[in-house]
């Protein structure tokens, strides 16, 4: 039940885009068509799913005060360890996918290197560290929820943008401006989820 709560909460209430503004850059740049944005969303979910549990274990058994050596607090190193881990994992995932799943690589391939510097991934790790989960199961649930929430948001905006291209928008608002305003309106809609009582 706890897991389900966390899952629903990270998709709808703490949505990465609408509440926390994580991964906005690729959200704006790659949301012109539905198919590419779903591809990117899947890649982000996949990388979150792999990196978050690893970062959780690193945080718990290496970085926390007194975790590795008694009396040593390495938590100030967490940024550099997390980003190095993410960059390494993304590189490995890219090579594995290229070798064993060429079809998947064809559709995700171009996005994978970009994901290393997507704030949604590092942001997920840092928020996870802040939430201080009890065990690795919560970290995996949180990763899946965040990823699916992000996928959901980028797929919605891509669908809206496909329709928007047929609308008559004032010239200065075209492209970026209207995308921001539409995202703002979607965020208002998502605010209504914050009243949900869970558990």
């Amino acid at each position, binding site marked *: 039940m706890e897991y389900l709560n966390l899952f629903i909460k990270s998709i709808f209430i703490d949505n990465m885009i609408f509440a926390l503004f994580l991964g906005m850059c690729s959200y704006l740049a790659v949301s012109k068509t539905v198919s590419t944005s779903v591809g990117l969303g899947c890649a982000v979910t996949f990388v979150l799913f792999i990196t978050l549990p690893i970062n959780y274990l690193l945080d718990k058994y290496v970085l926390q005060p007194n975790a590795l050596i008694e009396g040593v607090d390495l938590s100030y190193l967490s940024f550099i360890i997390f980003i190095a881990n993410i960059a390494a994992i993304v590189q490995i995932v890219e090579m594995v996918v290229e070798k064993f799943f060429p079809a998947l690589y064809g559709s995700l391939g171009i996005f994978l*290197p970009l994901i290393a510097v997507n*704030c949604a*991934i590092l942001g997920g790790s840092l928020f996870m560290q802040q939430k201080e989960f009890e065990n690795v199961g919560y970290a995996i649930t949180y990763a899946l929820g965040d990823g699916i929430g992000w996928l959901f948001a980028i797929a919605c905006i891509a669908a809206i943008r496909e329709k928007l291209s047929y609308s008559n928008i004032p010239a200065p608002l075209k492209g970026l401006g209207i995308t921001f305003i539409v995202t703002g309106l979607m965020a208002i809609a998502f605010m209504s989820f914050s009243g949900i009582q869970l558990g």
Partner: protein
Amino acid sequence: MANEKKPGVFTGPLWTNNPVVVQVLGICSALAVTTQMKPALVMGISLTCVLAFANVIISVLRNTIPNRIRIIVQLVVVAALVIIVNQILKAYVYDVSKALSVYVGLIITNCILMGRLEAFALGNKPFPALLDGLGNGLGYAMILFITATIRELFGSGTLFGYDVIARFVNEAGYDGYQNCGFFTMPAAALIILGCIIWYQRAKNPDLQDK
């Protein structure tokens, strides 16, 4: 990225080639830290420092970094600088550092850094790279500051925590202004930034999408 010639290196990013509203870089933190002006100002200064130093360091190293591992090298340089900034913030302005929470750490993956390092620092001498870093950092800080001013004034009725509306508007007899909580919500940040982009593109027609 047309006006990256030397004369415009510093002044260009402030308005006509602004990193946030024109190059569309670094949106995440620009939206998240702007509910209050103080965190926004601190964030702007932090990012400017990190960007200027990172630009200079990468520019000095640009001929020695192998092309294949340059992203990792950039990330490590930036992450080291961000750790320093984070420790300084925790030591001197602890309350602001709490308010910024993870967004200081997210300077590492702020697209302004990777974007400027890739587009400018890897191909230019250290001094222009320093100017580019300062210009882009200040352009980012400016957008943060404008958004934060609007959101704090209308959302909480204060400026830098000083109660402006209660003191001047309501006491002068025009009472009845209620703080509009909407401006402190995430959605307001997106809409305000959309309006800034609208204004900026209306003033610079050559930036508009066809």
